[in-house]
């Protein structure tokens, strides 16, 4: 068991091992240095920069119809702003929308639902209400859940949400 922050390089490797070739993203300060900047320089990914997170729900869905795997990288505020698109497209249409959500403001070591920050503590209850599987990535040990979660989402054609509870370390 480690208390090290999740390794950005390990997360990126997990995305690649799960066949993710597209990253659809709005910047999020939790994942900016450890994920989005490195991904933006990585030729293995096509980065699609979006203006509003619900665009990304639809872009990821279109990509899945084309047989391509993608993640939607955003902050919890973007997730909250996109709930109707997620409800309609990912949940009701049963599409494999894979969300990586930085929990900006979550206190270290505190479960998201016990955070004092409202925008953080309502995220898991909303995911539960929509029946969306979710995984918290708070330490480096948690990173191992990411690739299987993506595989399951595409195999079952269901959404999944990976909550990033601490800023991932910057890849070497």
């Amino acid at each position: 068991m480690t208390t090290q922050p999740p390794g950005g390089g390990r997360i990126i490797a997990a995305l690649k091992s799960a066949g993710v070739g597209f990253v659809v993203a709005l910047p999020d300060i939790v994942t900016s240095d450890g994920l989005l900047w490195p991904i933006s320089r990585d030729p293995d990914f096509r980065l699609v920069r979006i203006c509003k997170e619900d665009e990304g729900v639809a872009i990821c869905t279109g990509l899945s119809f084309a047989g391509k795997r993608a993640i939607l990288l955003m902050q919890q505020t973007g997730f909250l702003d996109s709930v109707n698109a997620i409800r309609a497209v990912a949940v009701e249409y049963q599409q494999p929308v894979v969300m990586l959500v930085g929990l900006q403001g979550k206190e270290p070591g505190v479960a998201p639902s016990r955070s004092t920050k409202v925008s953080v503590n309502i995220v898991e209850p909303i995911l539960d209400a929509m029946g969306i599987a979710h995984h918290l990535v708070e330490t480096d040990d948690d990173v191992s859940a990411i690739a299987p979660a993506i595989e399951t989402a595409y195999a079952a054609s269901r959404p999944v949400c990976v909550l990033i509870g601490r800023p991932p370390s910057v890849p070497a």
Partner: protein
Amino acid sequence: MMKRDACLKLLARHVREEAIVATYQAAFDWMRIAPRDLNYLSIGAMGLASSHGLGLSLGRPDRRIIVLDGDGSLLMNLGSLATVAAAAPANFAHLVFVNGVYEANGSHPLPSNGSLDFAAIARGAGIADAAAISTLAEFEAEIPHILAKPGPVFRALKVVAGEPSPQDYAYIHGAETRTRFRAAFAR
């Protein structure tokens, strides 16, 4: 003034293997005029047609994607024009039917006083090949360009509603339309 269904009947004469992404009234008209498996109708939430189309176009650069959007719908997702411009998919054409009202929800007017210039908005967002069309003859002449010219292509079509079409929401949202599209698009 052009009728929307008249525009779509012209388009239907030329469409072959293109994927058509259609929303709301344009979708209902298109389903009546050109029912086919390569119709992508499950937009889910209002405004997202252009974004679904962008995902399809990035995932399958070998396929032409035509989005049939509405003006009220696009107003909900204007940022998608900037996203499309930046992603610059060559196989993407975006047709917006401009009728100035929320036709599917009681035909209330858009907050625009009829003054919105969508072609100018698209150009301002970075889509250079953007223009307005107001006659059927113009539109017919443009169809080969819309179907083949390296994009992104954007056209705003000033229209009024034509004949009413059945509003088959159950089909649009149902699994069958997605299953049929997925199989046809994979070929």
